[in-house]
């Protein structure tokens, strides 16, 4: 046990002394969130909006003025009926439409419920989410100002996505990012740190010493488990504070599943390290063998349904695919273990398989 603790301490020191790598590992997740988050926002200015206003009155004109005054929107069309909307969306001349009911002014005065319809072009899910956010904000501000205090009226904007009816949220990228970051930190860094010792010859010293191969591996991965966990927290905090990404399900479950996936990724890293001779090959193997599937075959960038059948089948072998389903379920749908047990079980199975294969590979003395 003392030997083992000494070993964990050594690995931690390696990690802490390699300042550059450590800085990259800590900044990487946050930078990724910011890049993804802001890349999404680039085109969200000057949104062409159509307003359907069957009975113009003081209240609706005030609303139109507010929309026109915002630098986010320009009013592309105002018409009394919604007949033209489909055509306008298809042509791309408008990207959003606000359909007002009749007699807005009177309804506000009478405290009737007010039903607005906000139609958004969902062909680009990320921008769609942001456009909706902006429009909703203006509507709510307008409504608060228009209705004197004390009345408890609520707008119920009916949101209908055109062209992408299955869109869940603009924040689909955060769960994918969690998987991506964990894969890099856990798998890549484990593979590199084990192959580094192979290269320097210290691994041979360890293997001929009384310390067990399993203890060597455990000692190696513990600091990376901690680091991976910190990364998850950083990504979640950044996503929440900067972009307001929701967490609808249980935080504890999310962290527990993340821990499971960290171990999966570590096991992948161990597998790689047993197959390759040096750090460079380990890096290439991890990048080509893990990062690309994690990006492309997990549903992170391309929805699984839109992949060719062969790739859909292949995606079943990518652990990130199952983890992604779990994280999306927890964060966006508020799902619990009751609905996610199958994915969790698959991930547990994969992890056990990889761990057994990996530690066997490493237990074979270097030949």
């Amino acid at each position, binding site marked *: 046990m003392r030997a083992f*603790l000494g070993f964990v301490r050594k690995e931690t020191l390696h990690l802490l*002394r390699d300042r550059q790598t450590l800085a990259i590992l800590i900044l990487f997740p946050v930078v990724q969130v910011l890049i993804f988050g802001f890349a999404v926002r680039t085109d969200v200015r000057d949104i062409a909006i159509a307003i359907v206003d069957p009975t113009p009155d003081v209240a609706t004109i005030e609303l139109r003025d507010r929309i026109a005054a915002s630098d986010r929107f320009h009013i592309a069309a105002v018409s009394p009926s919604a007949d033209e909307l489909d055509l306008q969306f298809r042509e791309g001349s408008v990207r959003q439409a606000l359909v007002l009911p009749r007699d807005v002014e009177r309804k506000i005065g009478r405290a009737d419920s007010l039903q607005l319809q906000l139609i958004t072009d969902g062909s680009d899910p990320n921008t769609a989410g942001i456009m909706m956010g902006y429009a909703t904000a203006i509507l709510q501000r307008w409504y608060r100002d228009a209705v004197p205090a004390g009345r408890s009226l609520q707008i119920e904007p009916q949101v209908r996505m055109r062209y992408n009816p299955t869109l869940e949220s603009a924040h689909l990228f955060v769960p994918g990012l969690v998987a991506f970051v964990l894969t890099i930190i856990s798998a890549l860094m484990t593979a590199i740190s084990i192959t580094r010792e192979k290269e320097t010859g210290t691994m041979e010293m360890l293997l001929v010493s009384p310390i067990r191969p399993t203890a060597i591996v455990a000692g190696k991965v513990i600091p990376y488990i901690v680091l991976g966990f910190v990364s998850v927290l950083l990504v979640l905090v950044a996503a929440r504070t900067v972009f307001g990404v929701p967490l609808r399900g249980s935080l504890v479950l999310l962290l527990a599943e993340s821990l499971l996936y960290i171990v999966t990724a570590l096991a992948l890293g161990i597998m790689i390290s047993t197959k390759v001779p040096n750090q460079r090959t380990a890096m290439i193997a991890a990048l080509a063998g893990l990062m690309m599937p994690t990006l492309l075959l997990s549903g992170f960038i391309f929805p699984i349904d839109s992949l060719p059948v062969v790739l859909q089948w292949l995606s079943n072998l990518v652990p990130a695919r199952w983890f992604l389903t779990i994280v999306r379920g927890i964060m966006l749908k508020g799902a619990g273990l009751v609905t996610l047990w199958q994915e969790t079980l698959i991930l547990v199975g994969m992890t056990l398989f990889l761990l057994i294969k990996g530690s066997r590979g490493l237990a074979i003395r270097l030949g």
Partner: protein
Amino acid sequence: MSDYAIDAHELTRRFGSFTAVDAITFNVEQGEVFGFLGANGAGKTTAIRMLIGALEPTSGSATVAGYDLKTQADQVRRRIGYMSQKFSLYEDLTVRENITLYGGIYGVSDKDIATRTGDILTRIGLEHAGDDLVRDIPLGWKQQLAFCVALLHRPAVVFLDEPTGGVDPITRRRFWELIYEAGAAGTSVLVTTHYLDEAEYCRRISIMVNGAIAAMGTPSEVRKAVGAETLDEVFLKLTRPGSGAAA
């Protein structure tokens, strides 16, 4: 149970059809400094790696520190020290941290680690560099430090694979003083080397050619047996038979 520190019998290792070590039989007494000589690729490193349990023998048997290599590998591991050809300390840890790490791995108590760390630093003259990173100290000191670390847990046998490669003559001398000290303290030393002057320091030597032991004995016995004046000549005669050195 064997009284010898190392007792190898017909030890053989093949890689595919290539026989790297061919049925070597030899023994090393307690406290003996035993030299393993041979050209590059003669099988010295393969032989050592079998004896430290890093490589499984294809056939043959051996006991190390009195324990069977195959059946009592754990006992063997606890009683040997090893310093590899590659420099084997952690460059990004300090001198003290390296010593503490290996001490912990070999189950040396904290108290002993503390006293032995002090001893080591004084003996090799690194008192002021204990908290320096290993990568910042000169190569000669690194090698001496690696040797002392290999001896930290007072092993019965220590294996040194070309310990003095790339080191200047003065440091080599000091290194051999350390080896003698270890031998005098009862630790058997098996050392491989290219330097034939170093072979003269060994009590006995064996010269490996193509995986087999071609000559073995004290340096003077070997010279006599081969019929050569110097070890240089012995080496040339054995490793390149038919060359100009043949008498």
